[in-house]
């Protein structure tokens, strides 16, 4: 009998293994059902609303109900259910939008919906403020992480059902807020942070470098300043405000500022340096956002020095540039994680997935954040007074040369130092030439309309 018992134990073991795997399968099927259903060819979907209840996505939308270009400013951010764009809020959250539950199946009259943190009216005004220029803008609450404004121009009018694909401008189907961009001099924020982290405030402030308009580095290559007559002797605060390239080239070459320290700080801030490791992406409610990447070869290398000033091979997404502002504005050295979805409504009307404020790991010390904040506020007070109507503004501008300096993109990033209006932002205007609308103009519109909208609430 003992031998038969052993065989029974074997049978029991086989049955238990099968039951275990089967139980796991049932759990998996139930938890992933939303994802599966979101891939179905026909599925009833709910709407996406902004923070005021304005519709951002309606599966039954047409021009007669909403007007022809109602969705134009959010076309490549919110997207639609056509699967033409994959990195959009609707495409990535179809499971939450589906009028479906595993218990009840498909419900035509289900109440599934997504409520966003965006303010559509303000978003549209900022979109319109770009005029005939292309670019992108993003702004969020650096205390909570709510994204209020996120747009990318050119965009796509989803009401046209992609019938005009051939005539769409390049980049219409992509939200550039989440894509790599040449940061220009906004990169000097990261380099200044690295210097403060490496040497400390006092030592950095003691360093003064001269700018005569052009600096020949230790490798014998010329680094030009945008001011051909030069800025003279400057410390970090002055050079930051002047966006002085020779100063930063000399700072990078300084023997007391090791390249390893720059690399370490950059990596903590989300950079992929020298292609070592894997590129990091942020997940914004399913939307994938590029962080940053650069190459640091040697302190005297021409490209490395330019890389530290936001040219060369340095790439950063506008979203990432904005996130660094939160770590500075909060004086914590930790970025506030952004989100677009405030909450969702389940098919039965129950509220689900309420947003939570989350923070990144420590990117730099609170002391560095505090000093950097002062440097940026100083720049804002002295050069961007028009933006200070809702509180002091910490700012850094940048000009990114694209395609062998054939075109220049203009950037402006910063934060409002007001706990009642804690806004961080990043604006980029593509191919800007003198006389065009400026990033300062758009930021002014953004802050003014957003302030009105938030205080009306």
């Amino acid at each position, binding site marked *: 009998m003992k031998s038969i018992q052993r065989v029974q134990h*074997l049978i029991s073991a086989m049955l238990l293994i099968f039951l275990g795997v089967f139980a796991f399968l049932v759990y998996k099927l139930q938890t*992933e059902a*939303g994802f599966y259903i979101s891939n179905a060819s026909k599925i009833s979907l709910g709407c996406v609303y902004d923070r005021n209840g304005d519709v951002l996505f309606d599966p039954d939308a047409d021009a007669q109900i909403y007007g022809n270009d109602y969705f134009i400013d959010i076309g490549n951010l919110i997207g639609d259910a056509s699967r033409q764009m994959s990195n959009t809020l609707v495409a990535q959250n179809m499971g939450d939008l589906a009028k479906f539950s595993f218990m009840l199946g498909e419900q035509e009259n289900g109440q599934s919906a997504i409520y966003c943190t965006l303010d559509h009216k303000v978003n549209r005004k900022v979109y319109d403020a770009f005029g005939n220029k292309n670019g992108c803008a993003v702004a969020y609450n650096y205390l909570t992480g709510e994204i209020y404004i996120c747009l990318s121009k050119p965009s796509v009018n989803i009401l046209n059902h992609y019938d005009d694909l051939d005539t769409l401008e390049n980049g219409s189907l992509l939200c550039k807020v989440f894509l790599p961009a040449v940061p220009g001099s906004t990169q000097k924020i990261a380099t200044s942070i690295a210097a403060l982290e490496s040497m400390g405030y006092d030592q950095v402030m003691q360093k003064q470098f001269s700018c005569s308009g052009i600096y020949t580095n230790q490798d014998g290559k010329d680094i030009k300043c945008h001011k051909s007559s030069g800025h003279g002797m400057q410390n970090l605060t002055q050079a930051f405000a002047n966006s002085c390239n020779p100063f930063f080239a000399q700072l990078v070459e300084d023997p007391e500022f090791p390249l390893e320290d720059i690399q370490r700080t950059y990596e903590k801030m989300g950079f992929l340096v020298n292609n070592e490791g894997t590129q990091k992406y942020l997940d914004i409610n399913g939307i994938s956002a590029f962080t940053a990447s650069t190459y640091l070869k040697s302190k005297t290398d021409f490209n490395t020095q330019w890389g530290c000033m936001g040219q060369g091979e340095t790439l950063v997404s506008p979203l990432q540039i904005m996130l660094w502002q939160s770590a500075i504005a909060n004086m914590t050295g930790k970025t506030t994680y952004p989100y677009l979805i405030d909450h969702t409504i389940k098919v039965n009307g129950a509220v689900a997935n309420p947003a939570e404020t989350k923070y990144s790991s420590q990117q730099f010390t609170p002391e560095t954040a505090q000093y950097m904040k002062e440097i940026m506020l100083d720049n804002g007070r002295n050069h961007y007074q028009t933006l200070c109507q809702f509180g002091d503004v910490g700012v850094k501008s940048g000009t990114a040369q694209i395609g062998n300096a054939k075109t220049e993109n203009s950037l402006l990033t910063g934060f409002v130092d007001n706990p009642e209006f804690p806004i961080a932002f990043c604006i980029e205007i593509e191919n800007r030439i003198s006389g065009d609308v400026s990033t300062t103009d758009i930021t002014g519109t953004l802050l003014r309309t957003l302030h009105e909208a938030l205080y009306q609430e």
Partner: protein
Amino acid sequence: MYQNKLSYSRVVLMLFLTHISMLVIVFIRGSITSAGAFLKLAGAVIGLDVGYLLLTLAYEQMTYTLDFMLLALLNISLIFQSCFGSIGLSVKHLISCVMCLAACEAGFLLTRNHEWIRKQKGWIYALIVLLFILIIFFTDNQKKWITFGSFSIQPSEFIKPCYILVCAASIVELHEKIKILFFWVSKDTLILSGVTIMIFALQWWCHDLGSLPTFAAIFVCALFCRLCYPKAKISKRLIAIMCIAGIGILSAAWSFAPEYVQKRLHVDIWADRYGDGYQQCEALIGIAKGGWLGVGAGNGALCHIFAHESDIVFATICEEWGLLFALLTVMLILIMLMTVLMNPPKSYYHATMTAGVTAAFLAQMGLNIFGSCALIPFTGVTLPFLSQGGSSMITCGFLVGMLKAGQSPLFRHKAPPKKTAKKVTT
């Protein structure tokens, strides 16, 4: 012989109630387009129930548990298969169910006397060789089917019960050992290993790699039974060598598997949704659509997908009847296998045979269910009792007969059980 907990009449009542409830569900939630088609289905289900139960009056066994469960399962399967896409009796599946019941009786009668069947091993080996010849010389281009007009059989399916029978062994056989190099092994194990290699080679040659895990499970079971019977001298060295060999064979198979197998092993179904992942993606979407309670019999969309009634039948059932119903059905099969634990075999031969049957059923269920749900690579094997396919149904019926034989064995030296034992079921 066994303690009776439920009376025969109550079990029969439950059986009828199960099938009638399902028919009522079809009537209420199903997409009935023709009352005649529904009545035909209901008539076939009730007719099969009544017919088989009347037939059971004609013979005596120690327990009828498996008979009732098999009948319950087959009629559930008939209702499922008759409702995919539209409601109408699947005559083909009805015939398969009847053949399954007949095969069950054949399996039972042939294997209930463990001494007799053990002595027939030579014939069983010969039968396996005959099936090899049929597969090599008489099957179609895919080396799977032999077609007679509109009727096709898959000979490789019939190898499974034969293989389980040659894997089963009595303790006497296991004691007859000879020394080869450093190891004491029985002659039976050597022959079995040779046949196993031949079966594996044949399956590889036929590109029917989906069945390999089933044969492997049966073989591992047989090996366990050979190594772990009470008086076996378990050599740790032998076990270590076998484990290493097993891992080596698996790694080699993984590396040298044909391209189409490699593709299936590594496919990301959602990235290749309209290519190699098509059936699995559609199956998962179907399961999600069905939810716990299903969209109703005949209302599913998976019926438009290739092999919805066989390879991805679990998903098709989930879509139309709901995951809850599919779970209950799978549990019914598992409970059928668990009866071996409640009514243990009385001989070692039957014990090893039932272990082989359990391994075969579980492996095949796992391959079908977990494969169609993308938990493991998709193999395209049938789901026992629920998938359409005559050869598969006959084989499954025969295997249940073998299980039944372990629970209602025939011993030459004992008198046949008395008629009163007929009420027995646990």
